[in-house]
């Protein structure tokens, strides 16, 4: 039945750089890593930085360049967060993988093939602390024959003993131009028509996350065909169009509760994700010039609280209404404490 269902490879995979030197914008990292590749000697490594900046790509590219396609399967173990990663799994899987010894270093088919295995732990910051501690022991035990590549967004969530065993590499968020060139390359390959305005919208809504940008692009291309407008992109990405969020902000400034309430209901009815709304509201508040720092602090605090509540599963409408009412009170300089609270 295979012929009917094309295996549609995500563009993220399709256009993933295969070599370390192709990774965009992370010059220092690449320089250091190139040295490693030449000597075929690498320490444990920890890549951190915002999503979509090339961490996984780099890790995989190193592995590929070290072993080549033939040995790759037997030498590299990839584990990411969606795999069951309890302590036991980490122990057994890694142990099973690491305990099989490898042949001594012989260059094969033009690849260095150093005499150790590589374990790539993607999204390492979502591992529990217990699991990380267990890992520490494992690292020591098998340090002769394995190298660990940790990949995470927040280095603060990696326990210190682990972090200190690794060479750390920080990945910078991608600036618009870098992203733009990458995207237009993909567009050319896929035969898409994007004007500059659409390109800049794409890099704005993806906030320096190249993976997200590519995903949006692919989604939009699937839904709307080869010519894509800004609106289409916004629709696909789940970003709230600026008019909607501005209307809400304006209602907050007006000090009219009923107006704000109407805007909130409107946003809910349009089906915009509220967590996204909070994000955009935050951007607007932080960037606004006519708001005092104190007001900003008040608003941001509430935004943070509401975000947590949403994660706990609280109702979107009520949380957004609360945020709106709080913002309104901050903007209109109403007292922070409630008057009638017992």
């Amino acid at each position: 039945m295979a012929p009917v269902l094309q295996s549609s490879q995500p563009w993220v995979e399709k256009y993933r750089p295969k070599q370390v030197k192709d990774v965009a914008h992370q010059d220092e990292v690449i320089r250091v890593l190139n040295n490693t590749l030449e000597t075929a000697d690498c320490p444990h490594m920890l890549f951190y930085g915002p999503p979509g900046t090339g961490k996984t790509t780099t890790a995989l590219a190193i592995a590929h360049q070290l072993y080549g396609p033939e040995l790759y399967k037997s030498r590299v173990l990839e584990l990411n967060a969606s795999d069951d990663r309890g302590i036991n799994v980490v122990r057994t899987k890694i142990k099973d993988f690491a305990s099989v010894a490898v042949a001594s270093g012989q260059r094969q088919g033009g690849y260095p093939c150093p005499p150790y295995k590589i374990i790539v732990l993607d999204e390492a910051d979502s591992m529990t602390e217990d699991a990380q501690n267990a890992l520490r022991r494992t690292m020591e035990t098998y340090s002769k024959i394995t190298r660990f590549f940790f990949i995470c967004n927040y280095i603060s969530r990696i326990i210190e003993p682990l972090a200190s065993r690794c060479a750390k590499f920080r990945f910078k968020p991608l600036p618009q131009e870098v992203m733009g060139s990458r995207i237009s390359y993909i567009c050319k390959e896929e035969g898409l028509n994007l004007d500059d305005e659409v390109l800049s919208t794409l890099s704005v809504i993806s906030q320096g996350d190249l993976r997200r940008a590519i995903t949006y692009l692919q989604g939009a291309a699937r839904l709307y065909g080869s010519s894509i407008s800004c609106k289409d992109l916004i629709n696909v990405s789940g970003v709230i169009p600026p008019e909607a969020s501005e209307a809400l902000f304006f209602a907050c400034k007006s000090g009219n509760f009923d107006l704000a309430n109407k805007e909130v209901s409107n946003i809910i009815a349009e089906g915009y994700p509220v967590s996204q709304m909070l994000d955009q509201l935050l951007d607007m508040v932080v960037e606004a010039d006519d708001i005092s720092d104190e007001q900003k602090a008040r608003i941001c605090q509430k935004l943070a609280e509401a975000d947590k509540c949403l994660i706990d599963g609280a109702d979107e409408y009520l949380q957004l209404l609360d945020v709106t009412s709080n913002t309104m009170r901050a903007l209109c300089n109403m007292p922070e404490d409630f008057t009638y609270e017992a």
Partner: protein
Amino acid sequence: MLWVDKYRPKSLDNMNVHEDIAENLKKLVSEQDCPHLLFYGPSGSGKKTLIMALLRQMFGSSSEKVKVENKAWKIDAGSRTIEIELTTLSSTNHVEMNPSDAGFQDRYIVQEIIKEMAKNRPLVDAKGKRGFKVLVLNEVDKLSREAQHSLRRTMEKYSSSCRLILCCNSSSKVTEAIRSRCLNVRVNAPKEDQIVNVLEFIGKKEGLQLPVGFAARIAEKSNRSLRRAILSFETCRVQQYPFTSNQAIPPMDWEEYVSEIVSDIMKEQSPKRFAYSYTSCLCENFTFIIRKIIYISHCGDYFNFGYQPDTHSILFLEVLVVHRLLCIFCIVLCRLFQVRGKIYELLTNCIPPEIVLKRLLYELLRKLDDELKHEVCHWAAYYEHRMHLGQKAIFHLEAFIAKFMSIYKSFLIATFG
């Protein structure tokens, strides 16, 4: 059959709202490369209808021949076996289910059952068409975090043999990992004029005379939910036909109940009720009032009267003097108790507590001064959040109501007292 079902568009070609989305979906299907889909949007916006039409577009009329199956699954979870009962709706090419029905065991459903279903792919039919199966999962936003993680895994593993169509109300409760692996389709609630169009369409089909503005009033009351609008349209039809232009549009019975609760908690405090409530207080709780007066007379020196319980006339005067104060105080707690009974009634009828709370807030906001609205909506949000953290919704609902009463009382004292 209800009109909602009767006039539900069957195919993507004759959608009466969301024509644009339908158009895009058609394109998607025709390319034979359908990604996983995530439909999100508020309740009553037409997600279900779109999904069913999409299935029809994919598989033809065979997707409508569904059978309901209630099956108990035995799942081996480490040391013990868990039994989960799950109802599925399936045709030859698709399976539909609500994994969140299993409550906190939803993880196993996602891990095991979906795996099971995804594994046995349907045979290629004679024309060699459509060798994949579609799994429709409803209410994905209600799945626990763990279940969502497992779902992500399933999506990756079985993407060659099956496609997932996910459906939820709020996409912010679905993890980024899933969202980024699906094509997100936002289904917004139809605008009021769109709803009016649909209602008029149905009216014409049913051969009804619609007075001017009647459909618009229903649409306005529907809170932009098409389903709601059609349901109340039909209710109106049953209750009174021919329509009159000022015909009342009946609210749902539970909504009426909630507004009763709201008027209950605000009743004793309304100025119009002063006279009534003070006499009733007098009968019910005479000694209590006397005590209050004595207390007041002791505290403030300006009440210099001798304590003579038998002289009713003096008392009566004094009662009149402090009646305002008294009536504010007389938010008798038994009200709170009655309110509890009513909330229990709602809960036994399976009205979700967060909907009750939202409705309460809605009713309150209609009646309150602007000054209080901020405060009340803050507490509503606060207690709704707590409700999700806790187990027994009644505690939090009641705490909200008590909070409101307390706030309202001090508001009244500040304003009138």
